[in-house]
């Protein structure tokens, strides 16, 4: 008995060693950047920043100075303040839209993969219809019809994300529902709800969460493209995409106006991907089993 406990402790020690080794400085840098962007975006109202919408026509495209740390844009608005408030928009849309996707898509996918039959045909069919529709046209139509707003943008990007999450959830549910532990749970008298929530959800959640972080990165980029095209949040508000779009006009005079928001977006997207990949590799308890 004593030797066996020793073995367990050793196993635990080996496990934590392995974990520590895998978290490189890159991971921590990525976490630090994401945390930094979050804090700054959340605290934007309390930071001693100039207004992000006040124009100063005498100070157009001003260089870096103590008054405007990152200079001003082509309408004389403070670039740093616009970046910070743009982070708010990008993160809000980038997080909320995939949350809509993972909730609705994940639920539909699990139900379809578990119950099969007509319901599955219906879900998969309607998702295929949604996928077949050009996303940009759909976004254009919705914003034209319902008006440009943060809520509409989030909803439309969320709905566009549903099919992908549905497919990931359905695919893993399909393979898992055939596994014996599901039949074992049925044999132990578990209800459908219990099997779905207790047995299948923890298994399906891992690939879904990994996909979620990827979805955040993709949504930030998509929101950027829509804003670049002028379909994002309405003008006085800033978003990274619209800033790149506006900076394009003065690309020859002041290239930083397009590059600063692009760098911010690049770093954020990269960080989300890095954190997502590392977390998935670490929290996957099946690593040794398969």
């Amino acid at each position, binding site marked *: *008995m004593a030797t*066996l*406990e020793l073995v*367990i402790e050793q*196993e635990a020690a080996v496990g934590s060693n392995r974990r520590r080794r895998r978290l490189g400085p890159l991971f921590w840098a990525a976490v630090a950047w994401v945390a930094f962007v979050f804090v700054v975006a959340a605290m934007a109202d309390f930071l001693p920043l100039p207004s992000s919408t006040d124009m100063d026509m005498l100070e157009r495209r001003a260089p870096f100075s103590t008054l405007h740390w990152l200079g001003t844009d082509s309408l004389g608005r403070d670039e740093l303040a616009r970046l910070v408030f743009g982070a708010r928009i990008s993160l809000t849309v980038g997080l909320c839209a995939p949350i809509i996707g993972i909730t609705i898509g994940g639920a539909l996918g699990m139900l379809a993969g578990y119950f*099969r*039959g007509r319901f599955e045909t219906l879900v998969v069919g309607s998702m295929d219809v949604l996928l077949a529709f050009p996303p940009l046209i759909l976004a254009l139509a919705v914003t034209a019809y319902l008006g440009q707003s943060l809520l509409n943008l989030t909803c439309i990007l969320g709905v566009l994300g549903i099919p992908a999450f549905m497919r990931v959830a359905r695919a893993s549910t399909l393979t898992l529902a055939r*596994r*014996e*532990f599901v*039949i*074992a*749970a*049925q*044999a*132990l*008298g*578990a*209800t459908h709800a219990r099997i779905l929530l*207790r*047995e299948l959800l*923890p*298994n399906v959640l*891992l690939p879904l969460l990994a996909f979620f972080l990827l979805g955040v990165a993709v949504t930030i980029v998509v929101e950027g493209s829509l804003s670049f095209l002028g379909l994002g949040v309405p003008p006085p508000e800033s978003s990274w995409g619209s800033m790149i779009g506006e900076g394009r006009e003065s690309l020859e005079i002041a290239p930083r106006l397009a590059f600063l928001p692009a760098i911010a977006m690049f770093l954020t997207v990269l960080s989300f991907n890095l954190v997502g990949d590392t977390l998935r590799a670490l929290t996957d*308890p*099946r*690593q*040794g*089993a398969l």
Partner: protein
Amino acid sequence: MTEALLSVEAVAVDLPTPRGNLRAVDRVDLTVGAGRTLGIVGESGCGKTMLSRAILQLLPKKARLTGRVMFDGQDLARLDPERLRRLRGRSLAVVFQDPMTSLNPVLTIGTQLIETLQEHLELDAQAAKRRGAELLAAVGIPAPEQRLQQYPHQLSGGMRQRVAIAIALSCEPKLLIADEPTTALDVTIQAQILDLLAREQRRRHMAMILITHDLGVVAGRTDEVAVMYAGRVVERAPTHALFKKMRMPYTEALLAALPRIDAAPHTPLPAISGRPPDPTRPIQGCSFSPRCRYAEGLCGREKPLLTEAESPDHQFACFHPIVAGA
């Protein structure tokens, strides 16, 4: 024999396949008394697992079940889903072949075991945890408290099967169905697991159905044996009677195919030639006749029925049973 706890009456399972109807189980009759052990033996694909799923009402959705499965005076095939759900786990439990897949990989052993206890026995969290540790200790797992915190992949195959047995036993079932519980384990662990099952079965006075392809497994551990071939029971007898005097050529061939410890090295095993019949085609005559060395004209034309010979509890389906002493 005591009154039957489970009696399977003329159960047939049909599975629709693209190549036509597949009759996986063909009118099987079986009974298991309380506290007794029945072994079901047969090769892969002979319908053993489908029969066990039919008893548990866990057949694939498209499968059609006919006949009656009487358990404790209720017909499981006609029980409403809610009552059936309560019966499972509480009175009926099952241990599957592969402990790699029968435990949920992302939940700890403790979660899986304790939730079952809480659900069925309505224990509070503390009591359930204590009971869980006791159960793990009962199935021979050292340091059960620590094991409760671990995930299935941190345990060896034998340990995992012990955990699966602990979960199955957790609610004191009246009938345990062990579907090839040792097939995925290595030989040294096999005997331990079988002994564990036998010990717990005696201690809890529960009935057990032991499904296996290995006649050696059922030999010392069952009261009665049913041999299945191509979906049908072809011979059924008390274990000691069967091994003393088997009548069905298939049973004899199965036993002959077991490796013998006293045989000279490199002795070829007498394998059963040919393959089992295609279950999607109706079989004329005895399903074993194409592979049977005693077969003759009648065997290919007419289906032998399960009949009794000299003793009423020894039944077999054969026109040319092996004559004792021959």
